[in-house]
């Protein structure tokens, strides 16, 4: 697989995952507009924006002020994350980037995958945000999620399990790992004991599409440590950290040109290290409160290093190293 194409597949996966992540956070926040106290909404916006790596908007902390401010400005806050082309992390920007990557991958991409991605892009590009807002603020996010899920399904049905698919999946899962680590970190920080408003742990599970599974596997009563542990280590949950790092390790094992024989490629070694750290460290119910925060920071740092290693090993390697022996 062409190194540049591998990078494009990888980034396409990352951008698609980023779009879905933004859509899920928006759906969570916009659904709450109807019945959530304004101060909690304000906290919700802070968490959404922080998680997405976007500067936190200036929102009032006083409940009365927030009431007036937030309801009027939710439209703007959401719009920045949906249709603002100057925001590189908005849904339209990410979808557009994914499409640009796909455009360069046409020779490797099944036509149906391209068509599905392209139709999704044209839908969001041509979407009248003001009108969609009037019809129901959360509906737009939900439809975006549905369209992205359709694309994931088409990819699953149409693409061979070759390096093209592996790099795309790798991109999605590295993005997911980083986002989940940031989300957990942000949510835990927002949930530190204080007199102010808090976000519920069941909402965190909902954002991660984990609430139903948690209810079945554990309890309808959601406890802090249990929820964090569930989101870190549950092997059945597609958005758990453990699920992501194990899939990353498997994918890198398939990509490794030495066929996963020793010495393993550097990204593969890093993935194994990440898997071990997820297994051992954060979110353990026996741990003292607050220690997860360090673990999430380390995990985030290591996942960024993993990204750098993937690029250095498979895309930007020096010519001398790549020559046939």
């Amino acid at each position, binding site marked *: 697989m062409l190194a540049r194409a591998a990078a494009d597949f990888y980034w396409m996966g990352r951008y698609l995952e980023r779009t879905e992540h933004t859509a899920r956070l928006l759906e969570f926040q916009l659904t709450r507009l109807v019945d959530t106290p304004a101060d909690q909404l304000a906290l919700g916006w802070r968490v959404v924006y922080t998680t997405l790596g976007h500067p936190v908007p200036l929102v009032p902390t006083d409940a009365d002020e927030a009431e007036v401010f937030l309801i009027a400005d939710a439209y703007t806050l959401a719009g920045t994350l949906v249709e603002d082309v100057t925001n590189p992390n908005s849904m339209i920007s990410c979808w557009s980037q994914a499409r640009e990557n796909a455009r360069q991958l046409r020779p490797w991409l099944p*036509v149906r995958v391209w068509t599905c991605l392209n139709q999704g892009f044209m839908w969001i590009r041509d979407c009248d945000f003001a009108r969609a807002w009037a019809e129901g603020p959360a509906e737009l996010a939900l439809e975006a999620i549905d369209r992205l899920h359709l694309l994931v399904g088409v990819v699953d049905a149409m693409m061979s399990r070759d390096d093209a698919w592996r790099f795309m999946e790798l991109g999605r899962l590295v993005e997911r790992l980083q986002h989940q680590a940031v989300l957990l970190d942000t949510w835990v920080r927002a949930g530190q004991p204080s007199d102010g408003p808090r976000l519920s742990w069941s909402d965190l599970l909902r954002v991660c599409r984990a609430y139903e599974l948690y209810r079945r596997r554990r309890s309808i009563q959601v406890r802090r440590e249990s929820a964090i542990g569930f989101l870190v280590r549950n092997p059945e949950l597609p958005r758990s950290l453990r699920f992501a790092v194990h899939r990353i390790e498997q994918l890198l094992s398939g990509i490794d*040109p030495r066929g996963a024989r020793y010495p393993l490629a550097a990204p593969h070694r890093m993935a194994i290290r990440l898997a071990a750290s997820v297994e051992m460290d954060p979110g353990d119910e026996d741990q003292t409160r607050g220690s997860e925060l360090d673990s999430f920071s380390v995990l985030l740092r290591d996942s960024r290093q993993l990204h750098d290693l993937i690029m250095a090993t498979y895309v930007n390697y020096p010519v001398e190293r*790549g020559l046939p022996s």
Partner: protein
Amino acid sequence: MTVSAFLGNGFDDEPRACAAGSGAFADYDLEARFYDEVFQNDGTPRESCRKLVNSLSRASADDLATLQEGVARRFVHEGITFTVLGATRMSEHIIPIDCVPRVLTAAEWDHIDRGLRQRLTAMNLFLRDIYHEGHSLRDGVIPHELVLGCPQYRVEMRGLKVPHDVYVAVCGTDVVRTNDGFAVLEDNLRVPSGVSYMLACRTAIKRAFPRLYRAQGVREISRYPEHLYTTLTSLGSWGRDPRVAVLTPGHYNSAYYEHAFLAGEMGAELVEGRDLVVHDAIVYVRTASGLKRIDVIYRRVDDDFLDPVTFRSDSLLGVPGLFNAYRTGNVVIANAPGTGVADDKAVYSYVPRIIRYFLDEEPILANVETHLCREPDGLAHTLDHLENLVVKEVGGSGGYGMLVGPHSTAAEREAYAARLRADPTNFISQPVLDLSRASCFVDGRLEPRHVDVRPFVLRGREDIHISPGGLCRVALRKGSLVVNSSQGGGCKDLWILRD
């Protein structure tokens, strides 16, 4: 009638009252000076188009609009686009497609086919000659200063052995029809484009007219990518499966869709210059698992930008050392560098003489009368008849930089005349051709529009393959003669009948 009913009865052998000027063709005005591809001068359909005309007659304007919309939507969703680089941003455009196919009989196609084979054979012999012995130059077949002074002539190619003497492996020749018959408007011997639109058009129109297509007995073109692959790999000898790459300038290039399409269909790598590395005169591609050798490059990058070491040093699109690898024989490049000299618009006027000289045959396909402004008589004639001529830059393409006399203003002609006088060697002029017209569905009506066709010719080690079809370009603006997609033109499917 619903569209589905129309599709279900896509043809009808029963004679119907479907002459030009009546029924569905009520707005179809025939003009004797333009050869009409569908109707004879008396308004009755040509024999080859009878089924098509009957089909169209059975459809309402709404049916056709639905078909047209469906075809266009398919192009939009599948991203069958060309890119236009504006002053500030790049934009993607869908090539306009007309849903009514153009039909040519087997005999008509046979004539074109023989003419194109003859032409390409002569051009390859000519290119070999001018880069080696130069007999044609010494014998005065063509002025040597025209060839050696042509910007596309590459001194680096002199004496260089080109695999199997195939300089031009892929060619797209523009063929027009007038009341006098078929003629070649220009040869595209460097990086001819449009074949992907030809194939996309066929796929779309086959869906739109499934029964008519079957009933007409249309020759297939879908194996073009396979023929292209065979042609390219026939130019070398390998003890293993050769690795082929399509070299593209990148996704900002107007024909990027086509580059990606061809690479995908051939199972070749789609590479940019930055993906290739030359080491010890061997070309490698950067893959995720190290460098892999490349054997054949189907380049869609102009000569100037191929290799910054040999050609333009400021090129960011090329590969340093590529020409050296080519010279060493470690890689095949198609088309060979330096072929542009043979499709120069001034050299074009000598093609009939080139054919006679190298093949000792009369040209099967005529040339369009051409005046070289480099010659005093040609310049004088051009300046005296600007309002009746089409004037082109010798190295121009895409319909840019040309003057269509009858459609120009006095001020435009004056400005153009100044350019002509300043640099006459850069221009040629031709009479305004009465291009043939074919039926098109425009603004809810069936109307005639001017068309040409670009068939694609492949020259391998041993034989020539011509896909029975071509990119049929159409000037969608009423009265316009400019068929280029960048100038408001569109495309339609071309059906070559089996017999």
